[in-house]
C-alpha cells in the first residue's frame, strides 16, 4: 500500500486550485503569535526551576595554546559554589557534526584552538559567584603560534591547528562536469575575477541558553534554545553513554537560529549538563551577546575566484571556480557549507560546463558554519556580479542576459537535469525575473541616470536559487503523529522545530487542511524528544517540505482511519468520502454526512480500545535519484529548489561613499505554492535584508590574531529598521509536485540575491565594482576617487 502511495506522489499529482483550499494559500495568523505578543512565550533564559544553580565558563585567553595544568581548588572553596568541572570530566569524549568529523571536545583538555574556548565551568547559587569562581580557577598555558586566515594556514610549515590534519585542510572538493577548457575556447568573452565575502555573525538576538537537570542518575532533561534538538539528543546520549530514550530535549520558544550555533552544541551545553550531574541540581547557563559574538559559529569568510566564458549574446559556456574558505578551529559543518558553494552553481542558469576546486582551512578563529543562504550565497554573489560585469562589456542589459540564460520551467511531468545531476520539476526563475523587472519599471529606470545633488541612484538585478528539503547522508528520518482526541480536538506531534520561521503554524495548517477541520482545532505539542517523533531539525530549508510531508501523511493516516468508520456507516467505500468544513460526506451525495465530532466519537467508542492515531513519515528524505555524492558533487541534495529574482535600487552619497537601499525594492519568489502568503513575504524580505543586505553593506567581523575586535552589536553593524527597504514581494506559483501542496522552501533564495543586487545597483549608480564585501562607505569612497583619477 505504502509503496503505491509513494509512486503516486512522484507524478505531478492533482493540485487543487487555491480557492479550493480552506486554509492553505490564504493568510492565517501564526498559532504562537498571541503567546509572543503577551510575553507569555518562554524562551530558554526565562525558564526557572526550584534549587536551580547558575553556570559560568572559564575561557582561554589564548587563541592557540597547550593546556598544561588546571587548578580548581580555590574555586571549589568559594562559598556558594556547588560544582566545578574541567574537560577531563568528559572522559575523552569528542563530538562533531558527522561521525567522520568528531574533532571537538565538550571543554578543551589538552589544547585550545580559538580565543575564549571553554576549559572549565562552575555552578553556583548565583551568577556573580559562578563568575567569581571562574576567575579563581588557575590555568597554566603554553602559548603556541597560530594561523589566522586561510593564507597563513596553507603556507608550508605553518603551525597546525589539529596535529593530525596536515596542511590545515579541513575539507576539499574537486568536481569536473563537461569540459570547461573547451567551453572557454568556444567563448566569445572569457573573464576571471576574485570576490570576497565577509566573516559574519548569525545575527540572532537571543543568545544561546540552556537549563539542564537529571531526574535520576540515568535520565537527563534539558530545555535549550536548539534549532535541531535531535542533534543535541544524540550527542548528549553519546556523551553521557545514555540510551536515546533517556535523553529528553525540550524545546522552549527559540529566538531564531539561521542554521548556526543553536543547530549545534556550545561549550555551555556540555558544561550545564555535566555540572547538573555533578551538583545534583538544575543548572542554567545563559550566554551574553559578547559570548555569542566571540565564540559562537560564524558564516565562513570566502575568497572566490571565478572564471566565466560566454558567447557573444551572453550565453554561459563554462564556469570554473576556486573557493577558499576559513573554517575556524573545528570541522563542525564545514564539509556541507563548502559543498554547497559548488552544488548550486548549475542553477538558476543553463550551464553546460562547470569545474570547481574548493578548499576549506582550519584556523585559530572561532569555527565557521551554516548561515541562511548556506554556502550558496557566496558563489551566487560572485557569479551574479560577474555576469553584470560581462553583460556590460557585451552591451547587454542585465535583465536581458539573465532571461537568455535562465532555466526554463519544465513542462508538467518532465524534469530538467543539470550537468551535476540536479533535477527540477519546477523552475520559475524566468517568470521571477520578468515580473520583478516589470514591477520596478526596470526599463524606465535604466534609461535615465538619476542624480540629485551629491546623490546618485542605480538599480541592480540578481537571480538565485536555494535547495529545499535538504536530503543528507546519515540520519534523515522525519515523522509526525496526529492524535485525535475523543472530543474531536487534535494533537499534532512533530519533531520539527520552529525557530521563528513559522513552521509550527504551517504544520498545524497542513494538518487542518488535510483533515478538513479548522486551524483552531489543532493543538501542537512543541518538540520534546521524550514524546515527539524524530526529525533532523531546522536547517537546509527542509521543514516545510519534509516535515510537512510527514505531517500531511500522518494526517492522511488519521483521516483514513476515520473514513473507514464513516464509510462503513454509510455503506460506501472510504475513497468515496471526503472531509471538509468539519463534515465527513459522500462525495457524490453530500446529503449523506456526519459531523466531525460525531464521527470521532463514533470511531473512538466503536471498537473497544480503539484510538485514532495517525502516523506519517517523510519518504523524500531518502534520495529518489541516488544519494548526494559529496566527492563528485553529483546528485540531488534538495527535494526541490526555490528560485528568486531581486531588484534593488540604491542611493549613493558620492561625496562620502555611503550606500543606502531605497524603497524601490522588489523580490519575485518561486516557492512552488505559498502556504501562508504573508508569512512567506516576511521571510523573503527578512532573508534579503538581514543576511543579504547585511553582507553587502554593513556586516563584518574584524579579527586581530584570533581576537574579535568588534564583539558588540553597535561596532558589528546588524541591519536596523531605519535603513530597511519596504520591499514588495511577488509570488510566482509553479506548484512543485515534490512538496506538500506544491510547496518549496521560502526565503533562503532571497538571502542569495540581495548582495549581488545591491552591488550591481551600486555599479549602475557609480560605475565602480566592489568585489570585497561589505561595501562600507570608506571602501566605496576610495573606489570612487580612483575612478575619478583614472578618467
Amino acid at each position, binding site marked *: 500500500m505504502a509503496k503505491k502511495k509513494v509512486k503516486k506522489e512522484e507524478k505531478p499529482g492533482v493540485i487543487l486550485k487555491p480557492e479550493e483550499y480552506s486554509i492553505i494559500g490564504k493568510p492565517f495568523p501564526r498559532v504562537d503569535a498571541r503567546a509572543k505578543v503577551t510575553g507569555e512565550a518562554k524562551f530558554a533564559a526565562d525558564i526557572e526551576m526550584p534549587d536551580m544553580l547558575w553556570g559560568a565558563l572559564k575561557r582561554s585567553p589564548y587563541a592557540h595554546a597547550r593546556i598544561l595544568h588546571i587548578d580548581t581548588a580555590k574555586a571549589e572553596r568559594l562559598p556558594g559554589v556547588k560544582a566545578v568541572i574541567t574537560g577531563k570530566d568528559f572522559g575523552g569524549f569528542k563530538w562533531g557534526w558527522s561521525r567522520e568529523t568528531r574533532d571537538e571536545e565538550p571543554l578543551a583538555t589538552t589544547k585550545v584552538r580559538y580565543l575564549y574556548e571553554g576549559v572549565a565551568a562552575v555552578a553556583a547559587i548565583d551568577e556573580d559567584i559562578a563568575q567569581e569562581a571562574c576567575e579563581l580557577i588557575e590555568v597554566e598555558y603554553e602559548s603556541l603560534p597560530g594561523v589566522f586566515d586561510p593564507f597563513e594556514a596553507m603556507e608550508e610549515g605553518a603551525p597546525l591547528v589539529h596535529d593530525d590534519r596536515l596542511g590545515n585542510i579541513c575539507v576539499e572538493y574537486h568536481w569536473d562536469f563537461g569540459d570547461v577548457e573547451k567551453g572557454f575556447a568556444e567563448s566569445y568573452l572569457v573573464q576571471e575575477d576574485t570576490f570576497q565575502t565577509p566573516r559574519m555573525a548569525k545575527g540572532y*538576538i537571543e543568545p544561546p541558553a540552556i537549563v539542564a537537570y537529571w531526574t535520576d542518575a540515568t535520565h537527563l532533561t534539558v530545555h535549550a534554545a536548539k534549532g535541531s534538538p535531535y542533534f543535541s539528543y544524540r550527542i548528549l546520549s553519546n556523551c553521557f553513554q545514555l540510551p536515546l530514550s533517556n535523553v529528553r530535549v525540550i524545546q522552549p520558544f527559540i529566538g*531564531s537560529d539561521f542554521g548556526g550555533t543553536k543547530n549545534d552544541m556550545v561549550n555551555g551545553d556540555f558544561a550545564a549538563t555535566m555540572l547538573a550531574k555533578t551538583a545534583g541540581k538544575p543548572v542554567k547557563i545563559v550566554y551574553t551577546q559578547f559570548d555569542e559574538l566571540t565564540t559562537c559559529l560564524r558564516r565562513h569568510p570566502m575568497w572566490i575566484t571565478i572564471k566565466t566564458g560566454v558567447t557573444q549574446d551572453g550565453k554561459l559556456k563554462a564556469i570554473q571556480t576556486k573557493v577558499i574558505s576559513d573554517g575556524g578551529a573545528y570541522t563542525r559543518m564545514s564539509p556541507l557549507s563548502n559543498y554547497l558553494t559548488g552544488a548550486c552553481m548549475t542553477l538558476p542558469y543553463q550551464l553546460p560546463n562547470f569545474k570547481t576546486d574548493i578548499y576549506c582551512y582550519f584556523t585559530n578563529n572561532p569555527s565557521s558554519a551554516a548561515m541562511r543562504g548556506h554556502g550558496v550565497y557566496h558563489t551566487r554573489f560572485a557569479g551574479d556580479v560577474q555576469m553584470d560585469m560581462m553583460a556590460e562589456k557585451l552591451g547587454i542589459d542585465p535583465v536581458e542576459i539573465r532571461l537568455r540564460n535562465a532555466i526554463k520551467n519544465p513542462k508538467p511531468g518532465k524534469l530538467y537535469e543539470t550537468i551535476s545531476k540536479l533535477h527540477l520539476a519546477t523552475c520559475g526563475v524566468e517568470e521571477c525575473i520578468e515580473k520583478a523587472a516589470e514591477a520596478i519599471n526596470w526599463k524606465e529606470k535604466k534609461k535615465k541616470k538619476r542624480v540629485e545633488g551629491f546623490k546618485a541612484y542605480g538599480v541592480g538585478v540578481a537571480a538565485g536559487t536555494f535547495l529545499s528539503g535538504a536530503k543528507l547522508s546519515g540520519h534523515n528520518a522525519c515523522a509526525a503523529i496526529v492524535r485525535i482526541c475523543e472530543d474531536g480536538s487534535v494533537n499534532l506531534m512533530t519533531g520539527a522545530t520552529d525557530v521563528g520561521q513559522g513552521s509550527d503554524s504551517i504544520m498545524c495548517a497542513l494538518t487542518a487542511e488535510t483533515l478538513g477541520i479548522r486551524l483552531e482545532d489543532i493543538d501542537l505539542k512543541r518538540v520534546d524528544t521524550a514524546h515527539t517523533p524524530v526529525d533532523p531539525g531546522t536547517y537546509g530549508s527542509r521543514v516545510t517540505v519534509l516535515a510537512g510531508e510527514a505531517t500531511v501523511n500522518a494526517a492522511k493516516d488519521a483521516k483514513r482511519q476515520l473514513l473507514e468508520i464513516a464509510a462503513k456507516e454509510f455503506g460506501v467505500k472510504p475513497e468515496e468520502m471526503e472531509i471538509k468544513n468539519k463534515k465527513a460526506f459522500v462525495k457524490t451525495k453530500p446529503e449523506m454526512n456526519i459531523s466531525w465530532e460525531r464521527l470521532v466519537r463514533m470511531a473512538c467508542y466503536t471498537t473497544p480500545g480503539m484510538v485514532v492515531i495517525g502516523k506519517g513519515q517523510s519518504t523524500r528524505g531518502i534520495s529518489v535519484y541516488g544519494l548526494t555524492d559529496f566527492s563528485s558533487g553529483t546528485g540531488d541534495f534538495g527535494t526541490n529548489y526555490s528560485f528568486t529574482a531581486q531588484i534593488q535600487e540604491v542611493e549613493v552619497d558620492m561625496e562620502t561613499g555611503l550606500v543606502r537601499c531605497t524603497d524601490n525594492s522588489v523580490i519575485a519568489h518561486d516557492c512552488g505554492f505559498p502556504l501562508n502568503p504573508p508569512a512567506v513575504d516576511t521571510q523573503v524580505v527578512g532573508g534579503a535584508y538581514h543576511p543579504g543586505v547585511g553582507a553587502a553593506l554593513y556586516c563584518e567581523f574584524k579579527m586581530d590574531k584570533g581576537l574579535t575586535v568588534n564583539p558588540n552589536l553597535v561596532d558589528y553593524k546588524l541591519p536596523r529598521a531605519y535603513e530597511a527597504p519596504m520591499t514588495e514581494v511577488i509570488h510566482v506559483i509553479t506548484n512543485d509536485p515534490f512538496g506538500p501542496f506544491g510547496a518549496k522552501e521560502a526565503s533562503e533564495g532571497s538571502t542569495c540575491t540581495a548582495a549581488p543586487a545591491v552591488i550591481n545597483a551600486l555599479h549602475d549608480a557609480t560605475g565602480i565594482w566592489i568585489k570585497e564585501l561589505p561595501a562600507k562607505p570608506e571602501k566605496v569612497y576610495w573606489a570612487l576617487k580612483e575612478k575619478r583619477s583614472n578618467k
Partner: protein
Amino acid sequence: MKGEPKELRFTVNGKLHELQVKPKALLSDVLRKDLKLTGTKRGCLESTCGVCTVILDGKAVRSCSILALQANGHQVTTIEGLAQGDKLHPIQEAFINHGAVECGFCIPGRVMMAKALLDENPDPSREEVRLAMQGILCADSGYVKQIEAVEIAAGKMRGGE
C-alpha cells in the same frame, strides 16, 4: 556597606512592589528574577539590542541599562501589563494580524516601544515609526511588517477602520 540591599519601592503594571535589591541590580534583573516577569527579555546585556525595553513613566527605556534602584518611586509598564485581561491592546492585535511576529524575541520590547510612541504621538509619520523601531534589533523580519503593524495600530487607536 558595599552591596548592601536597599529598599526599592515602585509600581509595575499598576501594582506597588516593595523589595530589597542590591545597588548593582539592573532593572531587567529585578523584573525578570524578583518579579518573575520574564516577558521582558534578556538580550545583549550591553545596551545595544533593545529587547529589554519597558516603559518608565511613559517613556521607553532599556531596562538592562538602568540600575533598579533608579526606578524608585516610578511607574514601570512591561509587556505583561499591556493586555486588559483577555482583551489585547490594538498594537498586539496589529502585530498578530499583520504577520509581524516571527521568532518573537524582540516583540515584547518592540511592542512597548510602539506603545510609548503612539501614546506620545498618535499620528506618527513613517519616519517617526522607523526612528522608534531603530532602537530594537530584529534579525529575521526585515522590519517591513513591523513598521506597517505600528501604523495599522495607530490608525485603530485614532478611531479609524
